[in-house]
């Protein structure tokens, strides 16, 4: 345990959970200010609007006092410190009088002196530096520095730049050694892959030569670097900050709900930065959220396509394509698959379109492995209390079920890690093996593939505990029921964390067969009446709709002949999904050419996130609203296209704009309050897995954060920091097979095989783990199973 951890724990324990905050009043530059005990002088001054210049100081990092830029004069009860003090390291005390550069000539000279020293070795390459124009060093040298340098000596130089990973470049001569990046990596991300080495003026940020900066959060170091020392490979030399138009946005990559900033020049995104929301992502984002956006401007569909008589997709006019689509959808029995990436407004469009234009409840947003148990679980979940990041902050323990936070919702990982570091938060995980993420969380990992349901009931929780359920828990029959039961019995809070950004919103918009908008049950006549009245429609379909799997089954059997899809990759559902789709009349709303285009009869191009407004509901159920960053796009949001298509069918849904959809959806309110618990309806047979025989293993997998996901395409620098694609097996199994780390093994069943290098890990000895959607490892396609089935494992 480091000193800082001890200090943090002492501070946390002295504050207590709910004790009143003690306020301390100090005087800064003649003005009184009251701040909570423990506040640093530099931040007390900020409250008065007094900006003390600083570099190493960062409100979310432990103080270090390295740059010495924030020196001020301090006296306590008339006793003056003999020399100026670093205001970023000193907490306020009663009777403290602070004189900053504004009122103390000594502080002003000290700051000017430090600034001059910082600049003696700093190159004057601002005109070609990415940071020029938004650089804290440049800005503060102007506001708090001397006009000219008296330095006439030789500047320190280094070979430049060096790659500390495929996506982060380091120009050492620009570095002012504030240690923000190294402290971030250690304290926030738990990835101390970079550190300061050497000493004196030759001190520099460096990596261990065998371990590059392979962190999912490395981009944050580029953002918080107060000079241009760390730059992103994809953005380097691409733009000047003053040519960019910045728009607040929300991240479309996962359900964490990050606030983002999108910087656009002439209709093209050039970079994205983490936005600032203390209740969600604080000031951080993961590298996927930051750097995976090239999909916006590669392989885009620009015109509608229709399949002609010879079976080729050809460009068509909008009226022609819409007429063709409307015809095909109205003469056949049709269903809707939404995908998990829609905004809540778009999902609402699909939901209403299904009920009114297609007169069906056959709609599902889950383009992945799913179950009926899950559908009922989700309906029940909407009746429960919402869970937030703040609940994690206050939790006495966190239980991870079918959820790998670092890979599947990285900002939740950061939040848990923060509490683990700060106060030793207890984390337990039900998982096949101890992943690196779980190691960092010091999690107790219960490794027992196949008996998850029994294990879930064994957790001892309190009403301050938080259970985080990942979407993968639906893959174990009975597990979601057990989790809900555990929460009910212990009073613990339960949250469901889908992997995709749109699933939670789609659930609330009713883009699922058992629910109408606002968490109303399809089966409830009163709920249907509510919606009929609001929509001014005739009677809504009464039968609970089919799920994704059932819809695909019906397509195979010819019971459903038409399908409207929005952003679905059939390969995410099953290996055979594409065959069912071939038989049907498919209308696909897509931003880019995709596997779905191959089988679609009509393809209608729609806007990407950057080109439209809308909102995602994050895992907390909190709306993350965003406006279009590219304002002159010719693309339109799904909901607008759907509205026109419904008009064409002759059953209008009247959702011409995103704003209209948002307003209408909001007017429903929460319909869950007048319903009884859906828990009663929840039951499932417990899964039974045969014990693996010799050379057999139970297959398990999940998606890595950086993998073959289609939104990450065309970003090789980002892909360069993906975790290695390996199969994890136990020490025992490796000995039996006579293999060592790095050897190739073959994982196979009657459907096919996957060959991967192996890594020995702390895994249930009966199990094997492989990535779910990485190069050379796509088990759903190769083995027709992603998890919980028996595979043979042999040396390749």
């Amino acid at each position, binding site marked *: 345990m480091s*000193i800082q951890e001890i200090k943090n724990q002492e501070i946390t324990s002295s504050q207590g959970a709910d004790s009143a905050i003690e306020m301390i009043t100090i005087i800064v530059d003649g003005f009184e200010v009251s701040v909570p005990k423990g506040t640093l002088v530099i931040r007390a001054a900020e409250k008065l609007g007094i900006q003390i210049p600083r570099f190493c100081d960062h409100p979310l990092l432990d103080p270090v006092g390295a740059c010495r830029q924030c020196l001020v004069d301090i006296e306590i009860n008339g006793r003056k410190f003999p020399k100026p003090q670093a205001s970023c390291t000193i907490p306020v005390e009663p009777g403290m009088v602070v004189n900053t550069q504004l009122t103390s000539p000594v502080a002003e000279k000290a700051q000017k002196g430090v600034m001059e020293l910082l600049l003696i070795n700093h190159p004057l390459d601002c005109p070609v530096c990415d940071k020029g124009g938004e650089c804290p060093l440049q800005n503060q040298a102007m506001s708090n520095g001397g006009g000219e340098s008296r330095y006439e*000596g030789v500047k320190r130089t280094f070979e430049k730049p060096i790659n500390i990973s495929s996506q982060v470049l380091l120009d050492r001569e620009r570095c002012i*050694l504030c240690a923000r990046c190294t402290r971030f990596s250690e304290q926030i991300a738990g990835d101390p892959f970079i550190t300061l080495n050497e000493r004196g003026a030759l*001190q520099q940020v460096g990596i261990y030569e065998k371990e590059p900066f392979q962190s999912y959060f490395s981009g944050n170091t580029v953002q918080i670097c107060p000079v241009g020392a760390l730059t992103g490979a994809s953005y380097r030399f691409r733009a000047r900050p003053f040519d960019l138009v910045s728009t607040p946005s929300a991240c479309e990559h996962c359900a964490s709900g990050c606030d983002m900033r999108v910087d656009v020049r002439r209709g093209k995104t050039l970079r994205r930065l983490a936005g600032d929301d203390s209740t969600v992502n604080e000031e951080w984002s993961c590298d996927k959220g930051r750097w995976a956006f090239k999909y916006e401007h590669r392989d885009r569909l620009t015109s509608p396509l229709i399949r002609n008589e010879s079976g080729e997709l050809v460009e068509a006019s909008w009226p022609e394509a819409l007429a063709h689509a409307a015809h095909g959808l109205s003469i056949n029995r049709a269903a809707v698959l939404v995908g998990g990436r829609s905004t809540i407004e778009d999902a609402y469009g699909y939901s209403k379109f299904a009920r009114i234009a297609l007169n069906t409840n056959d709609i599902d947003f889950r383009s992945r492995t799913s179950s009926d148990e899950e559908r009922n679980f989700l309906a029940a979940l909407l009746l429960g209390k919402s869970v937030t990041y703040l609940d994690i902050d206050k939790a006495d323990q966190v239980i991870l079920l079918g959820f790998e936070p670092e890979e599947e919702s990285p900002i939740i990982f950061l939040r848990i890690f923060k509490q683990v570091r700060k106060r030793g938060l207890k984390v337990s995980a039900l998982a096949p093996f101890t992943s690196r993420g779980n190691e960092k969380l010091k999690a107790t990992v219960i490794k027992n593939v196949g008996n998850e349901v029994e294990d879930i009931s064994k957790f001892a929780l309190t009403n301050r505990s938080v259970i985080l359920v990942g979407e993968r828990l639906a893959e174990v029959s009975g597990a979601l029921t057990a989790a809900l039961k555990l929460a009910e019995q212990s009073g613990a809070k339960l949250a469901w964390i889908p992997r995709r950004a749109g699933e939670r919103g789609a659930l609330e918009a009713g883009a699922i067969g058992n629910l109408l908008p606002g968490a109303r049950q399809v089966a409830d006549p009163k709920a249907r009446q509510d919606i009929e009245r609001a929509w001014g429609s005739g009677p809504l379909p009464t039968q609970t709709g089919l799920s994704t799997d059932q819809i695909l089954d019906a397509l195979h059997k010819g019971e459903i002949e038409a399908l409207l899809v929005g952003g679905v990759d059939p390969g995410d559902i099953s290996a055979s999904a594409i065959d069912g789709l071939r038989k049907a009349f498919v209308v696909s709303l897509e931003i880019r050419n995709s596997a779905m285009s191959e089988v679609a009869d009509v393809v209608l191009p729609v806007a990407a996130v950057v080109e439209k407004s809308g909102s995602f509901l994050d895992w907390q159920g909190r709306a993350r609203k965003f406006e279009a960053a590219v304002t002159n796009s010719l693309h339109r949001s799904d909901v607008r296209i759907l509205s026109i298509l419904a008009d064409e069918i002759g059953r209008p849904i009247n959702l011409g704009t995103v704003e209209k959809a948002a307003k209408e959806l909001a007017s429903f309110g929460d319909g869950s309050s007048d319903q009884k618990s859906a828990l009663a309806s929840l039951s499932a047979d417990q899964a039974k897995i045969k014990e693996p025989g010799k050379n057999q293993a139970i297959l398990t997998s999940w998606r890595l954060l950086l993998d073959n996901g289609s939104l990450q395409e065309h970003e090789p620098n980002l892909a360069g920091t993906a975790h290695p694609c390996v199969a994890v097996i136990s020490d025992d199994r490796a000995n039996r097979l006579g293999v060592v780390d790095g050897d190739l093994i073959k994982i196979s069943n009657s459907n096919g095989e996957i060959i991967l290098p192996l890594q020995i890990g702390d895994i249930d000895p009966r199990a094997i783990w492989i990535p779910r959607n990485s190069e050379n490892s796509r088990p759903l396609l190769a083995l027709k199973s992603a998890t919980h089935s028996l595979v043979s494992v042999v040396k390749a």
Partner: protein
Amino acid sequence: MNTLTPVLSAFWDQKDSFTMEGYKRNGGYLALAKALAMDPDKIIEEVKESGLRGRGGAGFPTGMKWGFIPQGDQKDHYLVVNADESEPGTCKDTPLLMANPHVLIEGVIIASYAIRANHAFIYIRGEVTHVVRRVQQAIEDAYSAGLLGKNILGKGFDLELVLHVGAGAYICGEETALLDSLEGFRGQPRLRPPFPAIAGLYARPTVVNNVESIASVPSIIANGAQWFASMGTEKSKGFTLYSLSGHITNPGQFEAPLGITLRELIDMAGGVRAGHKLKFWTPGGSSTPMFTDAHLDVPLDYEGVAAAGSMLGTKALQIFDETTCVVRAVLRWTEFYKHESCGKCTPCREGTWWLVQALKNLENGQGAPEDLEKLLDICDNIMGRSFCALADGAASPIISSLQYFRDEYLEHLKNGGCPFDPAASTIFATAGLR
């Protein structure tokens, strides 16, 4: 008139002074037996009463430091001995450890017993391999004699003593950087608070003491606080090692009561190099502001030296006669500080880089008289602005040399180079060469 008071150095002239046998023959480890029969708090009290102050340079009262360790806190406590003696001119701990390592070990056991530590560490400078070997052997001998390890002298006190060899960094003499280094990290000073007494080594309560401070403890226990306090001056009590080096006839260690003057010490050392006269000197190593022949009668105790504008420091009295170019001497020291700056904070890292270049120009006679003001101003921007005291030490010789020898700097500029013959100041120079 002061006389020498050899205690630590009393038996250095005996051939086997460094062995267990030699040490015991001269009364070694008797204080330990006495101490282990005492209440630990009584030992702390005794050391407090003696008035012993830290001999590592800052002069903080040793007993008070021990008293800061929270007792009854159910945590491990540690004693760490700072033997990372690296200051230019400072050379007291190395000969002490060479000639009498057991006095340190005895002091370590007593101090550990007093602060209730069962683990002690000696962090020793890595370059002094011969001393490392000698201390290592002494520790092994102490273990064999039952003076370290379990149940010492059958009194139920356990102590493990580890000798840790540093990798050669001046900054590791700073106590918190030392602790980082001892923990296996790169040595850089830590933010305080928390102070080591609360969260030191491995975040546990820790006392960090200089070699000489700890080595003085056995004599205090053996002879009593009053005996110790009877030597020295009112606020600087006891005896200490003064290290004379440079242009002096008989350089070496002079153990004397605090408050002795350089004039007395020079007399005892046979005078300044024959045929020459004193030009400037450091009272406590190169980081303490220098003195001149005007300061020969300054009492060399903590208060006396401070009143004259410098610091007693490590009592490393480097004597420079009139053949020495002060600019050259200061440049050499500054180069040392630049090389040893850890790089953590801006004023030290960048400041020492700049100072070396500025001084080189002055030594070569380049520049204008205004550059001296600039040099002073740079020092002013470094002094008291950095994270630890290293940079203060780097600025001190420059500021003090400009105070006393500004004309000599100006002469370099007028002369277009150094007016001195560097060979004349060497130890092998013929007397009077100029």
